[in-house]
């Protein structure tokens, strides 16, 4: 394993921001994995740290294929992590909305440029992503549909679902989108949590990434199949929104199969405790997302269901 400072930014009052990469194997740039780009992506950083432990073991046993270099960047924006902010603390900009970056531009554009310059040229790219909505997800892999990456590659992760997302205008400045434009086959791995560590989901993510590396010949250690990945469009996932604001009481869990009319949750009046709304499944399917914050506003997506 080689530990390298990939990009460094001076701060007026703090130590330099040194974005650190961990490299395994040598030769062709095979795969790069990027963890936390936002200050609350603790789980995403944790997954990378677990992955580094696994790769160290594999390297020791010569189970990384010849002519394959693997790079892991566990945490890009630890500046924000250390002070409890999600975005770049000075101007609240999101590094993952600044790609491909610009070396003469604003601070987060420069960070994105510095990072992107070392991430180019890899055959595969994986980002440990988080979602802007508060909630827990079923561990899954997502592909931003640019037409540049073969969607059948999602099956090589062996997660229960591979999701294809049609990019929106604001997606065009993300790492994942630009990676693909610059000819890296890029995927996002979503785990169950963001601000907190979920051990089980982290392990699922680590296994999925290692399985992908095995299936693409980057490592030689066999990682057995888990699921026959079902590939679906994000647009086909049904969203259930709250009809009222109030206290959100979840009655189900991520990954559970629910039947039509099954009660998924309730919304209570936060002042007198009366039930103001009962949330039911409109159809049977797998619970893919559950809102996880006690307070909820009207029209908030509280459940997402992958329909049978």
């Amino acid at each position: 394993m080689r530990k390298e400072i990939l990009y460094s930014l001076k701060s007026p009052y703090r130590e330099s921001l040194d974005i650190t990469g961990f490299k395994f194997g040598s030769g062709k740039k095979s795969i790069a994995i990027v963890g936390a780009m936002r200050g609350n992506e603790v789980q995403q950083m944790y997954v990378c740290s677990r992955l580094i432990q696994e790769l160290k073991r594999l390297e020791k046993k010569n189970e990384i294929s010849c002519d394959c270099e693997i790079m892991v960047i566990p945490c890009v924006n630890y500046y924000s992590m250390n002070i409890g902010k999600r975005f770049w603390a000075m101007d609240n900009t999101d590094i993952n909305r600044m790609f491909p970056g610009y070396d003469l531009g604003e601070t987060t554009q420069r960070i994105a440029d510095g990072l992107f310059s070392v991430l180019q040229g890899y055959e595969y790219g994986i980002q440990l992503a988080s979602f802007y909505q508060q909630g827990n997800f079923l561990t899954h892999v997502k592909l931003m549909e640019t037409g540049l990456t073969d969607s059948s590659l999602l099956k090589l992760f062996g997660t229960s679902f591979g999701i294809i997302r049609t990019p929106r205008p604001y997606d065009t400045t993300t790492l994942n989108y630009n990676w693909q434009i610059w000819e890296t086959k890029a995927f996002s791995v979503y785990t169950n949590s963001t601000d907190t560590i979920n051990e089980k989901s982290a392990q699922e993510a680590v296994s999925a990434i290692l399985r992908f590396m095995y299936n693409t010949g980057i490592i030689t250690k066999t990682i057995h199949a888990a699921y026959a990945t079902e590939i679906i469009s994000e647009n086909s996932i049904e969203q259930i929104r709250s009809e009222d604001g109030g206290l959100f009481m979840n009655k189900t869990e991520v990954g559970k199969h629910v039947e039509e009319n099954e009660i998924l949750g309730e919304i209570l009046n936060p002042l007198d405790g009366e039930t103001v709304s009962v949330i039911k499944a409109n159809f049977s399917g797998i619970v893919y997302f559950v809102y996880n914050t006690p307070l909820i506003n009207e029209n908030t997506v509280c459940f997402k269901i992958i329909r049978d």
Partner: protein
Amino acid sequence: MVQSVTQASLAVNETLNIKKNSIKNGKSGKRICVVTGIHGDELEGQYLAWLLADHINKNIGCLNGTVDIYPALNPMGIDSITRGIPLFDLDMNRVFPGSKDGTMIETVCSAIIDDIAGADICIDVHSSNIFLKEIPQIRISVPTAETLVPYAKMLNVDFIWVHESATVLESTLAHSLNSRGTKTLVVEMGVGMRITKEYCFQLFDGVLNLMKNLGMWSGETKEPRVPAISLNGAVGFVNSDAAGIFVQTANFGDHVRKGDHIGDVLNPLTGKIEEKVTAVCDGMIFTLREYPIVYGGSLLARILCDSSDDIIEKGITQQ
């Protein structure tokens, strides 16, 4: 008359209510919309909204048509000094046109678009953020320039910036409305979290002048100033290459020559000058840093170049 544009229940005992003041008089079907407060830290439009409502109410006989004033499209943001939408980590100006079947914010954005659509002109008033101060200017993307520049000239601003369109800006209120055929002008002026009275009065005069040109206003107006217009990306960006405190030596509105000293990035710990900052082209400084702490990359100034030679517009064009 104050009306509710859209509402949504918040978690505890409160309703998010987007309001507008619809002032009508006469028989004309002409309508303009003045919207502001998409970004909760941009307050210049608040005083403009008051100036317009106050003046039109006091001179209602001069109005022939409808003026819809939306002072706070993001009321929770303004109330909490939050640029985006509190709790959502989202810039509201990246959610338009929204969706009738979407999340709370998407349904709110969709309702706002529906309410404004069909107006003769919409003016979306922004301030800069807390870091930069801007002279009163209108920003127009290249594809809409031919249609919008004539109206922009009526608004009494100092500068019209015609910039390259960016895919990411397709989620703005202005793009969404322009796509639906409602001519929408984006004004940027002043600095975040403050009110610059002179700029508000300047734009106030411009709005009345626009209304007069549309045949909606018979009251007194002033001849608008002739704005500088940037075409072909003739804007120079001055970014810091060092970290420290920026202390300017040039002033807002100054005409500078390429290489002129416009400020320094200083190190308060060592007493050293980390970077001597110079102009990147001949021209007028129309953006200047207001907040002194800088990192490498922090925008210090923008210069409207006298010539478009060698200048490529690559900076962030905020809306």
